[in-house]
């Protein structure tokens, strides 16, 4: 206490403006009373109670049929469906990214026809529901019974039956990839726009062509902006592939549906599918974080781990010295 008083007078002397060398303040760590957050405590209690209720029902409600979940978790057709889901995701994203880059470059082209064409494409594919697009591709043969390859308005070389070419799987790939292209185009464009115009000029002044500038200078720098949302798109795509179950394609969801339509164990099979989706999206999230860190190594800052933050919030778990300081202050 006496020491404390000394510090105060020292501080007064300094603020009073006298330039006599003040006694040094206690250089130790600041021991202050944290601000109380009663609202957070109420919220915490509510959340903890809700979690407890949920956990109890998960463990005790027999309708979850966890034994059935376990039985079908590694069922062969479920695994094959999961694999097809991954394939759909990978191919649609790869084609979508490529398409997105082409569309984004077209969109920025000085040629108004190219720019508008890309704009209309993006407008159409973002403006109509993916489910409608999938059904559309599936029923393409109703619109064009025969597909031909040849010179437009000129001679035709190959004729194919649309029904034979556009199998449900092809319709699924078309629908997912073309739709994804529209979203990726906007993401890539945002990345390109984020690169300073001076970079284009510097590249041009060295004699680089537009293509070289785009490929070697602009796109690599745009990656920082492009990669995070692309990761999100990939994760979203993984889940979106479940939409193609309406085309009777045996991906993960439809594989589960086939089984429960036979056994009527709807809930446990939906759980099987959900758990696999969760596993896949979690893995993708880890990959995404890694890639982001690689492309922006100096901007990545790790967050404080969950337990550390928890400990920081609970005053009674703090080290003894801090506790004593808190108590002392409260008594005054």
């Amino acid at each position: 206490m006496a020491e404390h008083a000394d510090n105060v007078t020292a501080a007064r002397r300094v603020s009073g403006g006298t330039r006599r060398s003040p006694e040094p303040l206690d250089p130790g760590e600041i021991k202050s009373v944290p601000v109380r957050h009663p609202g957070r405590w109420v919220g915490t209690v509510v959340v903890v109670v809700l979690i407890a209720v949920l956990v109890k029902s998960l463990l005790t409600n027999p309708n979850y049929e966890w034994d059935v979940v376990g039985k079908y978790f590694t069922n062969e057709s479920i695994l094959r469906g999961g694999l097809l889901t991954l394939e759909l995701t990978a191919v649609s994203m790869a084609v979508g990214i490529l398409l997105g880059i082409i569309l984004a470059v077209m969109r920025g082209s000085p040629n108004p026809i190219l720019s508008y064409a890309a704009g209309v494409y993006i407008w159409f594919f973002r403006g109509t529901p993916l489910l409608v697009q999938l059904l559309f591709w599936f029923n393409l043969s109703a619109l064009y019974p025969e597909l031909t390859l040849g010179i437009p308005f000129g001679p035709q070389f190959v004729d194919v039956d649309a029904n034979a070419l556009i199998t449900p799987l092809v319709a699924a790939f078309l629908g997912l990839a073309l739709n994804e292209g529209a979203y990726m185009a906007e993401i890539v464009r945002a990345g390109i726009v984020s690169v300073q115009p001076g970079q284009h000029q510097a590249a041009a002044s060295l004699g680089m062509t537009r293509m070289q500038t785009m490929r070697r200078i602009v796109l690599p720098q745009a990656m920082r902006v492009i990669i995070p949302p692309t990761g999100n798109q990939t994760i979203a795509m993984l889940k979106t592939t479940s939409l193609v179950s309406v085309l009777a394609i045996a991906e993960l969801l439809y594989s589960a549906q086939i089984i429960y339509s036979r056994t009527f164990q709807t809930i446990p099979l939906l759980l099987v599918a959900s758990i696999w989706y969760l596993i896949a999206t979690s893995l993708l999230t880890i990959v995404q974080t890694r890639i982001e860190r690689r492309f922006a190594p100096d901007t990545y800052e790790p967050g404080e781990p969950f337990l550390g933050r928890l400990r920081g919030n609970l005053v009674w778990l703090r080290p003894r010295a801090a506790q004593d300081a808190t108590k002392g202050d409260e008594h005054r």
Partner: protein
Amino acid sequence: MSPEPLVRAEQIHKRYARNEVLKGVDLTVSEGQVLCIVGPSGSGKSTFLRCINHLEQIHQGRLWVNGSLVGYRQVGDKLHELPDREVCRQRAEIGMVFQDFNLFSHFTALENVMAGPTLVRKEPRAKAAAYARELLERVGLADKLDSYPRRLSGGQQQRVAIARALAMRPKLMLFDEPTSALDPELVGEVLDVMRQLARDGMTMIVVTHEMGFAREVGDELVFMDDGVIVESGPPKELLTNPREARTQSFLSKVL
């Protein structure tokens, strides 16, 4: 005795939408000459510089660098725009240094200097790297080869930018206010490099606010205002005895 000048500009006009920024600029630069352009901001001096390597298109007049028309080919009395590839070949002969350095941020200093030779001239990497090292040494950055631009000071970045332009072995160097974005204590190191370059006989056009540099290094000084050249002559004469009222008023503000 005068041979064909390296740069010859005749009646250059340039406008953005309806705003005319160059209103008939005539100018010649001979080989080995250092020409400094000064003038108030908005006078068109940077725009003119960017016309010389066709970063900006001119609307009237003719511009020759090293004997060939910039950006166009003359067939009869008609001008044909040059294809992208040809424009690029012309630009490769002209080095340019920007106010904001514009280093490629995803490349190291060495890779920045190698970018032109490897990507444009398709030189083997080893050869380009050797020359890049030599150039970076010449601008005093031998110890910064592997540094990324954001780890370098402004002065260091600008010296890398000069080395990057020199790596193309240009016949002409354009400097667009190379020291304007620098902290005062970093200006000297960049000017030193430019001074050395002038001494080595490089033909240079320098848009600048550094009157001291213009006086000391420049062979000729041009004062531009409102899209025209108001006055030009030997720097010492022009700086001490400006004839035109506009030049006098500008110099009284900056000297």
